């Protein structure tokens, strides 16, 4: 849980029906109730016909409680849990394109990428694309480092998360 001026960041994990319109009704609920989504990711889960949706939101405990209740109220949302950061693995992936007109820059970028355990996934004459994975702080740090080199484009996936150990947000 990261403390910010606006409040804590909470991670809400939901198991939802994997069908058209569900993401719309979920995101529409957030808009309608004035809850701000920081990041939202959605993809297949381990269960057939169900998807896992991970939302990070900033706010206080009362607001997050209400988010959970409003989510649970949606017919296509099967299960909702707030993930406790102490017992949760969170990951985000970013693709970062850096302009590398001189070779010094190029080798510096490659060095930093190795330190951050990233991968160079595209090489052109004048640019590199680096894939970097980790928690959001690590990605923020990498992006800060790249800024002086000529950062051209960033694409971030948003946070996805799973609880550690045998605790699960599965639909039984």
């Amino acid at each position, binding site marked *: 849980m990261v403390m910010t001026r606006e409040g804590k960041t909470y991670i809400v994990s939901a198991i939802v029906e994997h069908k058209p*319109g569900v993401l719309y009704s979920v995101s*529409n609920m957030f808009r309608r109730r004035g809850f701000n989504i920081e990041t939202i990711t959605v993809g297949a889960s381990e269960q057939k016909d169900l998807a896992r949706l991970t939302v990070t939101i900033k706010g206080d405990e009362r607001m997050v409680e209400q988010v959970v209740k409003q989510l649970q*109220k*949606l017919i*296509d949302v*099967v299960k909702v849990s707030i993930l406790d950061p102490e017992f949760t693995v969170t990951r985000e992936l970013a693709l970062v394109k850096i302009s590398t007109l001189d070779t010094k820059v190029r080798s510096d970028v490659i060095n930093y990428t190795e330190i951050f355990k990233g991968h160079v996934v595209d090489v052109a004459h004048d640019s590199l694309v680096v894939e970097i994975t980790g928690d959001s702080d690590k990605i923020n740090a990498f992006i800060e480092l790249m800024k002086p080199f000529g950062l051209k484009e960033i694409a971030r996936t948003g946070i996805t998360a799973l609880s550690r150990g045998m605790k699960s947000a599965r639909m039984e």
Partner: protein
Amino acid sequence: MYFLTMATKEGSKMVKMTGAKALIESLKRQKVEVIFGIPGGAVLPIYDVLYDSDIKHILMRHEQCAAHAADGYARASGKVGVCMATSGPGATNLVTGIANAYMDSSPIVAFTGNVPRAFIGKDAFQETDIVGVTTPITKCNFQIKNAKEISKIVNTAFYVASTGRPGPVLIDLPKDTQTEVDDIEFDDGISLRGYKPNIEPHPLQIEKAVKLLTQAERPVIIAGGGVITSGASQELLAVAKMLVAPVATTLMGKGSVAENHPLSLGMLGMHGTITANKIVPEADVLLAVGTRFSDRSTGKVEMFCRDAKIIHVDIDAAEVGKNIRPHVPIVADAKLALKAIYDRLVKSFNKKERSLWMQRIQEQKKQQAEMENKDGMTPPHLLVELRNILPHDAIITTEVGQNQMWSALYLKTYKPRTFISSGGLGTMGFGFPASLGAKVACPDVPVLDIAGDGSFIMTEQDLATSVSWNIPVTVIVMNNSVLGMVAQWQRMFYNRRYSAIDLGKIPDFVRLAEAYGAQGIRVGSSEEFIDAVKKAMKSDVTTVIDVPISPEQNVFPMVPPGAEIDKIMIG
């Protein structure tokens, strides 16, 4: 229509038929007796099946009225109301009615046609994304993908609409799913992993509630629409009597307790009774059942019953803690929760006298009664007189604005489901089509719409429906030739700068009624008014009674917007 029956592995029967036929069969299995609707291009296959069906279809004159009529039918009967419209404008015209049903938790299922599947997303003629439009104002909605799934989706829709906290569900049928022929299986199963309406109260929470109620010196109950929905009036009264706890209702809860009962405080809120608004803030323990603590009932919410311990019973978990943080939250059906509280109290509760507390309530009631002691053509007086000649089971619907608040204040309600009003959305034009739906549901009781001239004109075209389908109701138009509630606010809060409120004594409501083949009566005194109502109730045709009143009339008592609930203005 041809049928080809074959037995499946499980022995259930599959029948070859069109999607439209499957829809109507599914409605019959849901025991639907009446559909309020208007046909159009995208629902022609359904209407072709309806032609041979014994389900009654009432042709409305505007889709908004179809949805309101279904809503009125649902509220009067407790059954699911059904409405139907074509694609595009037919569908969007339903939207106000669906939103209204959503805000007031009324179970309706709305059917819309849409363009054929191949045209969806192509902006074809009369295409609209009605599923997208209605997502935030339905409990859930569906677009049919093929004829085969119609039966299951209809079952699901009726189940969702009528269980938990009831509400509207919409089913959108692309035209070619209506004509598609397939093997249709009618099983009554539904599949909903994400929907489990939690109805049993948690015993530990009941225990906590009972402890608070037992210790209470000045317990007060607030009853909302949830008490009516769950049919919990008896349980409510039993708990109230045992505790000697007075009961205030919200607008939606009007009728959950008979308003002539000594423990009834009447309605709470912005236009609540003096009794309710004075007594509720004095509570030390507040038991709120089936209410969402709307801004119109609490006034300034941060100040509302600040020192009271609050027990909040609601079937919708998302309402518990949303506006007010209760000390004891109970997510449960109102009837089951009240029964559990009663059963637990019966064992241990020592009846208290509370004579000082009761005396205090009687004093407030006297003050409230003085508000009714007016005479002549004033709405409080007229409505008190009206109540005296109406049977207790007469159904009142209202429009929205002054007419609605006068009705809520001065027309005492004695039974659940006999006061039907647009509470949450505040839809002018709701009362008249809702009265038609209520009359269809309860043909043997008088149904009266208390209207204003501004509201009635918004849906008066359905006088045609009422006359041609022989649905006689009485419309009482409190005619001040202005948008009365707006005028009242401009008078009170905008320095009498009357902006866009003058309706110019148009139309002549007597001649308007007559133009539709209805009966029109204009009255000039309270005696004439009562005579006209008596005549209307005997009539087999709808009657519009034009009641000229002063445009300067305000609704009092009133709590100014944003003020604490006991800051009551009485004139």
